């Protein structure tokens, strides 16, 4: 193990950073797009919401390798097609949790907010999103885990990341390279999940005194 680190240590750091960078970018885009859509869906009628949810579910069923390969005609190879593909995967869990979390907010609260003269926007920002925050966050956590795992595949289209170790290991039949790529992916996923768990606790609205 020490010898592995001596040989590949610097490379490992670079690849881990690439991996994290691709995943974070994709997830961030996912949040930026899916949360507002999820919020807006609660204001749209049921049919629209169903259609949007179905589309997101459909995107989720495309095999990861196929989706990555499909990106090449549009974006070539490298980081960008990888980020776009991972972003598409991150959408559904975030979208679904945002929508359901918002729908689950006690109707009495929304009624009270409206009845006291909040605009629809104020109600969303001050009441509904804070109340739905824990559910939305758990969707983001789920997406983060998926995205980090699938980012390993992105090396196939030249995006770099820890997937490079794994694919090299497979090609060269080197178990140490395979493990050297997959163990950091696992650790990365766990650490990110733990950090987002902390964030989830932080955004969960306080309902009792400290």
């Amino acid at each position: 193990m020490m010898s592995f680190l001596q040989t590949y240590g610097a490379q490992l750091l670079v690849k881990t950073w690439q991996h994290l960078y691709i995943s974070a970018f994709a997830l961030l885009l996912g949040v930026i797009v899916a949360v507002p859509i999820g919020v807006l869906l609660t204001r749209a009628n049921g049919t629209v919401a169903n259609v949007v949810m179905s589309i997101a579910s459909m995107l989720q069923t495309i095999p990861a390798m196929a989706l990555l390969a499909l990106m090449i005609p549009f974006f070539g190879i490298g980081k960008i097609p990888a980020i776009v593909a991972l972003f598409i995967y991150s959408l559904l869990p975030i979208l679904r949790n945002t929508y359901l979390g918002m729908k689950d907010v006690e109707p009495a609260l929304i009624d009270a907010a409206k009845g006291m003269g909040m605009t629809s926007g104020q109600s969303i920002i001050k009441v509904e999103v804070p109340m739905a925050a824990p559910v939305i966050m758990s969707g983001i956590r789920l997406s983060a885990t998926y995205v980090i795992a699938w980012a390993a595949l992105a090396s196939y289209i030249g995006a770099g990341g820890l997937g490079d170790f794994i694919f090299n290991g497979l090609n060269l039949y080197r178990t140490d390279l395979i493990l050297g790529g997959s163990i950091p992916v696992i650790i990365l996923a766990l650490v990110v999940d733990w950090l987002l768990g902390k964030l989830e606790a932080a955004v969960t609205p306080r309902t009792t005194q400290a």
Partner: protein
Amino acid sequence: MEHLNKTYPGGKVAVEDFNLEIEKGEFVCFIGTSGSGKTTTMRMINRMLSQTSGTIKLNGEDISKMDPVKLRRQIGYVIQNIGLMPHMTIRDNITLVPRLLKWPQDKMDERAKEMIKLVELPEDYLDRYPSQLSGGQQQRIGVVRALAADQDLVLMDEPFGALDPITREALQDLVKDLQERLGKTFVFVTHDMDEALKLSTRIVIMDGGEIMQVDTPDGILRHPANEFVENLIGKDRLIQARPSITTVGQVMLKDPIATTPGKSLTDALRLMHDKRVDSLLVTDEAGILKGVIGIEDVDYNFNSATSVSDIMKKDLFYVQSNSLIRDTVERILKRGLKNIPVVDDNHRLVGIVTRATLVDIVYDALWGDEEADEETNNIHHGEDEDADSASAKGGEA
């Protein structure tokens, strides 16, 4: 509100031709069974729902032409589920509307303190969260939240329905007190007749989207407009509510001692002696009240007059048996009379109200509440057994 209609898609009529004018400072209760349209009507006032036709005017201004958000900020709103924001402190909950109206911070802090004092909760509750308060305390906050931005009109939708009876009563007292002290106008939806009778200055009884009756609590108890209203009030409550609508006939002593004008003074004196009374009412053979003679009159005129008709006083004060105690008792007390004859519509003597009867009435009016249960029992026995006990039940408060 004029000719207000609300029809839901699919033709279900929720409110039909609703007309009502509410004066400033009134406490109006909408009462009815589920689906009577009472909540629907209330929610149209702050445009939580919009009417199918008709107009609602607030201070002369058609609300359908107002910005609904601005409109709602000037109308207090209290709902059954309380609807406090669980992620905001009590302070932030109370000052929610002022914050929407962008009041300066110090004014909001001051208002929060003022408001929590109003509902008799300690000031340090301001930093607590709703989940740390009991249901009753939460709804107290719900009530002042609806007053914090100086709203003149407060809408309440079965606000105390989910509370236990003791808490509910305390909150009813609080709301009534606030309304009387602050002179706000309340529109209160309930299905609890006791609540409506206790709180309102006027009650609007609704059924199937239509107004059945609009009247004061007294008016509704005394003159229920139709069978539906009677059923809604309930037979029990009609009996309980009697103190305010007790008639003289219900409390008078029956079979008063009376004589006829043709009787001699000797006979009259003997009758007084036998019955241990100091005066006699005089009626003709048909029982029509003619006058009264007292022992002083008999003594003074014993030698000069022969028959009762010679000395009886004809101009005497009497009351109708179907007049209300409430209206009558003061007149009786003012005149300082000992006995007041009671007559029916045909001027026939039917009973007498004595000073002792008045004592019972006053006694019950002051302390009757505490003994209400006991008294009610007495009446049920008393009525069958003994007509004379009528005076004892003088108006079970």
